[in-house]
């Protein structure tokens, strides 16, 4: 089966692209949680500083960003050809390629491969694509246990929690919380465990080592796939990924179709952009690359699942498709003032932060995530941080238009906006409205307005409103001839 432009969006009822609450409602618990605000503020500030330092030492950083942007744009324009090339190369080197229309198809493909192998447990490399499709839950319902082996994903899994960051899924937890989770949920945790980061890491290491040695099947995602040789690439910090990719007999990689790069030269650009943007390191500790299967070395079976799940639907939007350029570095999360206050759970999707606000609504269809494009003050920090120059603020504005245009029925807001447009399209009506606003002076108490009716009550709940002046600027200009009469 092949993908084509404008395939259906990601189905509801499976995976983790939709929250049950709108962003403003989902953000409330996080905003009221002082511990969480401190954890997030500290963590994002630390990563921001690390990133700024290592980006600052690259003299051609802006040229690299431009190159990354250009490669992504060119690749998306011929995505179908690159994917078919990838399929041919992977197959020629002993791998098997599966095309998954959506989350349900991908989960079914992976589950069938695991069941056919006879394994009841799989080890997992940290992967956004498998989080997106809810693979762990699908495997569980087929009687297969999925073990997350990335330290932070393990913390999330043991805590019966959801990831709140693309790169640092447990960013919302501090070390004393992690110690409690390990003591409660990790049956082989040492009795004298403390919240010392080294002790915590060693406990997880011992716990995971047993799983690696027993595992017969591993599931991974991919950071990149090089079409010209059919090579898959995973970048990581801990080495757990390397264990998963080399020890088991069967390796299954689930990859969003947009992760493809045509050539090794193209990959070189992203290998420079990703670690500095992501962990704030010059180079990540472990980069694993594999091409098909190699007799006597590593997995004997390799399956590549190419996932659409709304991606070609996004590709059909000439403006919005830029979101598919994302390399999941999460630099935009770390610089986002909204993300820093609310954390990732408020976005209701595995893709939080600014990129999530433009990616999730396109994967699901904007109606299913209509509040996300509004979860931004359009401050623009995300664009400056993005290693492939995705113009996230412009994409947010574009998606807001799609939300409004796809809404059929008029709302109080749409009526107010139409009225404001009518008023402001005419200088006479606008001047009249400004004069009428002067009745607002009656609401003033000691030079400030502290209560306004809805929807402006949302403003005055925490902020005073300005008192309309006795004379507007245009009235002053007319009365004084622009101040030339000396007044």
């Amino acid at each position: 089966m092949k993908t084509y432009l404008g395939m259906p969006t990601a189905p509801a009822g499976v995976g983790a692209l939709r929250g049950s609450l709108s962003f403003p409602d989902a953000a409330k618990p996080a905003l009221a949680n002082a511990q969480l605000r401190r954890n997030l503020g500290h963590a994002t500030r630390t990563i921001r500083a690390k990133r700024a330092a290592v980006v600052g030492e690259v003299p051609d950083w802006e040229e690299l960003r431009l190159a990354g942007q250009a490669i992504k744009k060119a690749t998306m324009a011929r995505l179908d050809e690159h994917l078919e090339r990838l399929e041919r190369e992977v197959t020629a080197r002993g791998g098997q390629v599966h095309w998954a229309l959506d989350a349900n198809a991908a989960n079914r493909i992976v589950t069938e491969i695991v069941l056919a192998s006879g394994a009841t447990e799989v080890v997992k490399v940290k992967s956004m694509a498998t989080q997106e499709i809810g693979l762990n839950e699908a495997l569980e319902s087929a009687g297969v246990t999925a073990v997350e082996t990335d330290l932070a994903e393990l913390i999330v899994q043991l805590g019966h929690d959801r990831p709140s960051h693309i790169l640092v899924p447990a960013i919302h937890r501090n070390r004393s919380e992690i110690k409690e989770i390990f003591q409660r949920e990790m049956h082989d945790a040492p009795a004298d465990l403390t919240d010392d980061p080294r002790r915590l890491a060693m406990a997880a290491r011992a716990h995971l080592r047993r799983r690696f040695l027993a595992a017969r099947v591993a599931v991974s995602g991919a950071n990149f796939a090089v079409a010209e040789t059919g090579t898959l690439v995973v970048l990581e910090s801990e080495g757990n990924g390397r264990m998963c990719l080399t020890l088991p007999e069967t390796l299954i990689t689930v990859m969003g179709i947009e992760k493809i790069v045509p050539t090794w030269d193209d990959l070189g650009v992203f290998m420079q952009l990703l670690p500095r943007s992501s962990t704030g390191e010059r180079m990540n500790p472990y980069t694993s690359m594999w091409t098909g299967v190699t007799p006597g070395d590593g997995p004997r079976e390799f399956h590549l699942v190419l996932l659409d799940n709304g991606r070609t639907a996004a590709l059909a939007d000439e403006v919005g498709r830029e979101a598919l350029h994302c390399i999941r570095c999460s630099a935009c999360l770390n610089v986002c003032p909204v993300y820093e206050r609310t954390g990732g759970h408020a976005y209701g999707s595995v893709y939080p932060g600014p990129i999530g606000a433009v990616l999730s609504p396109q994967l699901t269809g904007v109606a299913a995530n209509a509040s996300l494009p509004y979860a931004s003050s359009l401050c623009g920090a995300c664009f400056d941080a993005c290693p492939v120059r995705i113009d996230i603020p412009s994409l947010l504005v574009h998606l807001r238009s799609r939300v409004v245009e796809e809404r059929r029925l008029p709302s109080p807001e749409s009526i107010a906006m139409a009225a404001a447009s009518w008023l402001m399209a005419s200088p006479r009506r606008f001047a009249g409205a400004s004069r009428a606003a002067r009745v607002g002076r009656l609401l003033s108490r000691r030079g400030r307005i502290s209560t306004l009716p809805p929807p402006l009550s949302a403003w005055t709940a925490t902020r005073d409103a300005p008192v309309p002046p006795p004379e507007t600027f245009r009235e002053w200009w007319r009365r004084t001839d622009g101040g030339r009469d000396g007044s």
Partner: protein
Amino acid sequence: MVLDVRVALFVTCLVDALFPDVGKATTKLLRRLGHEVVFPANQTCCGQMHINTGYQADALPLIRHHSRVFDPYDAIVAPSGSCAGSVRHQHAAVATRAGRPGLASRAESIASRTYELSEFLVDVLGVDDVGAHYPHRVTYHPTCHSLRLLRVGDKPLRLLRNVRGIDLVELPDADQCCGFGGTFAVKNADTSTAMLADKMRNVLSTRAEAVCAGDSSCLMHIGGGLSRLRTGTRTVHLAEILASVE
């Protein structure tokens, strides 16, 4: 230094209706520097609120109107990074998306002639000392759109550093958004307020009498919070400081 420019003041709807002193200060400043200031009286609003809330169809008549009103002028100056940013970065794109190439090309032409105040002073007029006097302790908040949409860089600070008598103190985490974001402040009021709380904490840590910025909208937000908490710290627009003399 460039002399005798005829400047069309794009005062912005917010300044016109709520903060007329900012428009008066801009007029006074440009005139003091030897330039003719005209106020195209038919101007209304650039439509940024509509565009950024998703109502591009409702923004279109405003863009058309703005383009008609300002087309005759060579230099269009706004005391706002945000409104100048909308004209420069959004108008043509909205017109194009609506299938209006004629309007898009006129909007592009107007965009090339539209400046935020500090850009106009430093880049076009070649002035970074406007001869102002302002004997107060002030901290400066660079607004997001002036910083990251227009890239005004340190131009406002260069102008402020040359003001006589000013005690200019650095604002910690200055480049962080204050949380205004137009309708964001109402639609996501809790998040907006959380951002504002941190901005106010930084402003108050400077012990400044006033926080200065180049956008009345952001100042309305920061000022609304400072006033609600009875901090005594005022807001002042960049134009008002630059227009002050001894």
